[in-house]
Structure formats: C-alpha cells, structure tokens
C-alpha cells in the first residue's frame, strides 16, 4: 500500500514551538505567578518604607498561616467551578467543620486524628448533598449551594452557638505553627495531589464536563459520577479549610467561615480559573489565595483606612481580572 499523502495546511505548514503551546494553555497560571511576584515586591517596598527593615520570618509565617484556609477553600471552589458549576456553600462547610473541630477535638492524638477524619467525612457528606441535588435533581448549582450554604451555617451555629471551644496546642503547631512557614509543606502536598488529580479519570472527567458535557458523555466520560465526586471533593477541601482555620485561630467560631464563599471565588479567578468551566489549575488557585492575602497586607501597610479596605480590594480585583482577560487574549492571538 502506498504511504498516505502527508498534508499541510496552506499558510501554516509548520508547527508552532512547544513552549508557545504550553504557555497558551497555561496563561492563567503564568499570570498568577507574575501577579504574585509583583504583589510581593510592592509589599516589600511599602513594608520597608513603613518599618525601615525587610519583612522577616514572623511576617512570612503569619502570611502563610492566614492564607492556608483560603488556599484550601479556593481549591474546593476550583474543582466545582471546573465542572461549570459554582459552590456557594464553601463558607457553610468551613463554618461547620470549624465548629465541630472546636467542640470535639480532644487533647490526645487519637482524638485529634479521629475527629479530623470525622470532619472530613462531614465535609464529604455536605458535598455529596450538593452533588446529588445538582446532578439527580437537575437543579442549578448556584441555587442548590445558596440553599445549602444557609443550611450548613445553621447546623454550625447549632453545634457551636457562641465562639469558643478549644483547639489543642499540638494541633495548632501541626497546621499553623508560629515558628516558621512550615505550612508551605501542605501547599506542596496539594500541588502533588493536583498533579495526580489531573492524571486521573476523575480529573479528566471534571475538565471534560466543563468543556462540553454532551461531547464528554459521547466519549465515554461518566458525567454524573464525575460531577458528584467533584462536589464531594469540594466539600472535603472546604472541611480541610475549616480545620486550618480552627488551628490558626486556636478556638472555634461558627461564623468566621462565611467570608470564604466569596473570597474562594476571588482567589480562583485571580489564579486563572475560568468561571465558564473547563479551564484552570488548582495550583493557580493557591497562588490566587496568596495574591489576595498580599493585597490585604499591602493595604494595611499603606495605611488605608480599614473602612475603605473592601473598596480597594474590589478595585484590585477588577484590575486583576481585566489584566488576566486582556493579556490572555493578546497572548493567544500572538501565537
């Protein structure tokens, strides 16, 4: 048999270089890295101006510890958003897990491990409820999770009516140590987990659903299963976020988690995750969480009146989103 005729398309017979292709696919992540570096530099400059010295171990540690809960919440949000959904109940699950941890964590290692696992199961259950309602109930994610947000918050208040409870010291040392930025280790672990997730059937399924549900199903992706599991994973990561919050606060509060619903969306978007689904990276979302924290830090040291803080946060967010959108488009066009 004669060899098949090779084909080349008129006007573009050659392949583009690999690095360009990879950059085009990871524009969001690349921009997140740039934004993080930029915000770090600005932070250092403002810090030096205000304190006449460079930020040290203490600043780094407290930044990392305050960011960890948001980092996990933004991972939770990212997994759901990738399926072209949204999870407004993130804040509710954080509250619930925070409250349960504060009430139940005992001083023994056994109790800590047991109740941490229980909290993760609670998070998974919350996610499962979301996933089942969205998938089998054929309801819109925004409605389902708006409703369950209130429900999970309500349960959290019932578990811990007043702020209080006690987080054991060794628990805090493990997850929010004040001696150094050790929690960055968890970021690395999550990075590895994300790497594995992207190479699992579930990971591919989640991306496929976010791209085109019908096409995904036509090509053998178990759409329902992948979507439900995405919400379950989201619930688990929200619960982890609540545990980190409890560890760094050393006590529980059934309302502090509320803000994570919106800030997790912000962090994901800053990290290059598309709210239209199918595009994004968990590592980017973590970077987005750190960028968010840096913006708050910068505003603090720039002596912005706390009353106007959310105004400036919003302003920076809009700027960042416009930047990501337009630079991304330009880069794709240039290739």
């Amino acid at each position: 048999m004669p060899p098949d005729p090779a084909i080349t398309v008129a006007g573009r017979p050659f392949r583009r270089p690999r690095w360009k292709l990879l950059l085009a696919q990871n524009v969001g992540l690349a921009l997140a890295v740039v934004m993080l570096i930029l915000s770090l530099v600005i932070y250092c400059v403002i810090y030096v101006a205000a304190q006449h010295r460079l930020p040290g171990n203490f600043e780094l540690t407290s930044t990392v510890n305050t960011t960890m809960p948001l980092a996990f919440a933004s991972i939770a949000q990212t997994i759901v958003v990738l399926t072209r959904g949204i999870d407004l109940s993130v804040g509710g699950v954080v509250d619930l897990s925070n409250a349960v941890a504060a009430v139940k964590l005992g001083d023994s290692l056994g109790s800590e491990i047991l109740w941490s696992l229980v909290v993760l199961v609670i998070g998974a259950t919350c996610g499962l409820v979301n996933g089942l309602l969205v998938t089998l109930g054929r309801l819109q994610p925004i409605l389902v999770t708006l409703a369950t947000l209130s429900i999970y918050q309500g349960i959290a208040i019932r578990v811990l009516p007043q702020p209080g409870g006690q987080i054991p010291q060794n628990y805090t040392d493990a997850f929010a140590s004040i001696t150094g930025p050790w929690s960055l280790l968890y970021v690395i672990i999550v990075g590895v987990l994300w790497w594995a997730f992207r190479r699992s059937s579930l990971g591919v399924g989640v991306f496929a659903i976010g791209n085109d549900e019908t096409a995904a199903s036509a090509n053998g992706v178990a759409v329902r299963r992948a979507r439900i599991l995405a919400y379950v994973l989201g619930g688990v990561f929200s619960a982890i976020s609540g545990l980190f919050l409890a560890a760094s606060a050393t006590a529980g509060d059934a309302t502090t988690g509320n803000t994570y619903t919106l800030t997790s969306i912000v962090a994901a978007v800053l990290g290059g995750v598309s709210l239209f689904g199918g595009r994004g990276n968990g590592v980017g979302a973590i970077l987005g969480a750190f960028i968010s924290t840096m913006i708050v830090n910068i505003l603090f040291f720039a002596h912005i009146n706390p009353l106007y803080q959310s105004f400036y946060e919003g302003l920076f967010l809009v700027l960042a989103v416009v930047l990501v959108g337009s630079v991304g488009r330009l880069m794709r066009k240039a290739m």
Partner: protein
Amino acid sequence: MTDAGHAALAGAPFIEGIGLSRAYGGVRALHNASLAVLPGEVHALVGENGAGKSTLIKVLGGRVRPDSGEIRLRGTSVSFSGPEAAHRVGVQTVFQELTLLPSLTVAENLFLSREPRSRLTHLIDRRAMGRRAEELLTGMGIDHIDPLAAVEDISLSERQLVEIVRAISHEPDILFLDEPTSSLVEREVVWLFEQIRRLRARGTAMVFTSHRWNEVRSIADRITVFRNGGDVGTFTDISEDDAVSLMTGRHVETLYPPVPALTASAPIALETHHLASAHLHDVSLQLHAGEILGVGGLAGHGHRALFFTLFGADRATSGTITVAGKQVSIRSPHDAMKRGVGIALVPEDRKTEGLLLRMSVRDNMTLAILRGRLSRMGFLRRAEEKRLSSDLSRQLRIKTAGPHIAVGSLSGGNQQKVLLGRWLLAEPRILLLYDVTRGVDVSTKAEIYALIHRLAAEGKAILFYSSDAEELAHLTHRVLVMREGRIAAALEGNAITAEAIVSAAVRDTSPASGRGTHAA
C-alpha cells in the same frame, strides 16, 4: 469465526435501520427511513438539507433515539443508550457538530476515557499519551498537528481531521461520517479518501454524506437518495441528473437561472486601489451597481483576506477603498455597515461567524437592524420586527415551525437563508457573499442563486466568492481569479468557464519553471 461464516456474512448487512422515524417538536426529521450497510462498502447518502440524512446518522450512531423503527446489528436487534454504547459494538460516528473538548489537548481528546496508564501508579501517563498520539497522527500522514496543542488553538479543519482520526483509531466495523468534507480543503479531502479506501480494504463499512457530486461519484460503492425524511432508493450507479431529480424533482440544467443583463451605464459602487494587507497584495478592482463580480481561485490565496478587509474585520495596511465615488475608511464591521457605506458580509461558516444558534430565527434576522430601522427612541418596534421577519421567512422559504424557533434546530441550508435574510433586511448597497452555498443542498442553492440575481437586478453590487468554479461560471458577469493574494486573471463574457477559472488559479506564471502551458 470460520471462513464459511465470514462468507455468509459478506452478503448480509453489518448494520441495518428499518422503518426509522424521529420527530423534533412536531417537525418530522425522519419518516419510515431504511438503510442497509454491507461490510466493506462505502455508502453515500445524498439529499437536500433537512432530508433526514443527518438524523439517520444520529440515530444509527446512538446519539438520538428513534421514535419508532428498528436497528439491527449483524442481524440482531439493538438499541443504543448513547454514542458510547454504539462505540462498544464497533460503531463510530464523526458527527457534523464536532465533539472535541476545546481546552484539552489533541492527545487528551484522542485518548479520552482510554488513556494509557502508568503501571506503577495507575495514573494517566501523559508522556506515553503524547507519544502515542504523535504515532497515530503521523501514521495516518498528518504531521502538522501537534498532539500537545489545545484543540482551541488549532484551526477548524484541523479539528475535523482530529475528529476523523479519533473515530478511525477505534478501529470501528462501521464508520459514519456526516459531511466530513465541508470544512476540509482539497488536500485534506484527498487525504480523507485515502483513509476511506484503506479502511474499505480492511472490510470496514462506511456511510458518508456530501453535497458534492464529484466526491460521491469518486468514492461511493452505493448511493442512497433521501427526500423528505425518507429513503427513495439505493443505487450502485446513478447519474447526477437522475439523483438530483430524485432529491428535488428538478434537473441540473434548471439549477442556474440566466444571468440578468448588465446596464452599461451603471455607476461604480465599490472600488479599491492597490489594497494590501498581510495576505493581500496590490488588489485593485471595480464593482458596479447591479453587477455580480465573481472571485475565484484555490483556497488560501487571499479571498478571505479581501472579503474581510472590505468588511473591516481585517485591517488593510495600504491602499484605498472608495464607495460610490467617496473614499471611505473601514476599520471595523460597524464602519462597513454605516449609512453611506452599506457593505454587508455573509460568511461561509454560519455556525462560528454569524448565527446565534440558541436565539430565534426572528432575533437572528433582525440583529443587524435593531439599532436602525427597528428602533424608535431606543425602544424596539416589536410589531414591525414580527412583520419583517415573517415576510422574509416566507420570501426565502425558510423551513421552520415558526420564527420563534431557535436557529440551531434548523437544517444547514435554512440556517444559511436566515443569515442571508439578516443582511437583506439591513438593505446594503454592496453585498459580499463568501462561499455562501457551501454545505447547502441543491434546491436551496437554486433558491439562493435566484435571490442573488434578483438582488443584482434591483441594483445591488455583489462580490461573490465561491470554492465551486462551476457556480462562479454560471452566476456572474465577470470573474477575478486570485493567486497568492493578487488578482491573477480577469475573465469576462464567454471566456468565463469553470475550466478557465481553474486553469487561471493553478497556472504557474514564473518563466523559470517552464510549466506555464501545463494547465491550459
């Protein structure tokens, strides 16, 4: 299977559809249609848009369930719960709507839900996947698509190729291809037919649809003609004329109406002087009111750049455009559509470049005039909108249950008519028609031809590009043939023939090559 068993099977159909019917919201897309596909045959389905070919393929490919009728696979009755179920029994389909996932890479798409795994961790081995995708593509003669490119970063025709490669890579027993060639250029069609021949030699049964008779004739073993949702006959040998009359009840000769006479004193509507851009070099042309000026040549030689530059979708780097004697600056489609300019473009790819598929026929038609004729102090004149759109639907004979129906549910030819209708409502002086009959059935083509002639007779100036030389020859007053972004030849009067257009398009004029007379 024994040899005897194999021989017995050779005569029996691989897959069979018997008395299949399917309706969409009251419109009968398929009515009592039957089809038998034999092993190792290439079976062409021909018929107008909306005759039921695509619906039949969707039903047999497992994408759509029939309302009634039976599907038999190797003699046993089956029912597919989805395309995935069909895949499992060796039935692959390349649907007209592509099913690739845009943000994933070519390799990920090729191996979706059957990715190579690492033995150690059981995770997807992306390196092996990239390597195997590369082997798969180059093994089939495709060397210009990078398996690590995201699908959204490759061209439409490349996506179509990937879709075809994926279907073939499953080594199906039966392969359905719904209009596989409509987004491919000539070279790629040659490639596809090479693949089809190779699969046929292996015993694969293939069913494909096409509106191009020469494609059907060159590759099909049998042809089934469809009309009004049902099959009207299967033939091993049928002439184009007979096939067309079976499809439509009309003959080929009556397809092209006589070209309307041109008034000698007609004013110049559009003129360009030395127009140039990245893909366009020194193009000067004159288009008169009432004239149909054809533009021909091989794909990728600057036609698209010319049309898109005139419409403001591409930017000219030098040269001037004059409309009705006045020099104009067209930097965006908005400029082109402005009062006093009045240039409208009807593009070929109606799905990506023109129609809002989820919106209604009416909304799509009136889109270009919402801010003009239909607006009164910023409010929409609803009654006028209704009147205009239903008049136009009738006039263009758009087959739909009503103007409120989503355009996406219409057949291809009818979608194209909606797009044409939009620009007619805008009442442009100059109409740029870019391969508007591509993927459109014979009868709709005839209607579009008549419409173009009527518009020219009304005094509109029409620039008409077509990839079909026959169509150019029959429909236009003059033809400009483009090559490498320049106007290579101008044909007029009796000199316009399909042969002359093709030969002007491929003739190598460089004296050194000595092939100047080859094409003539």
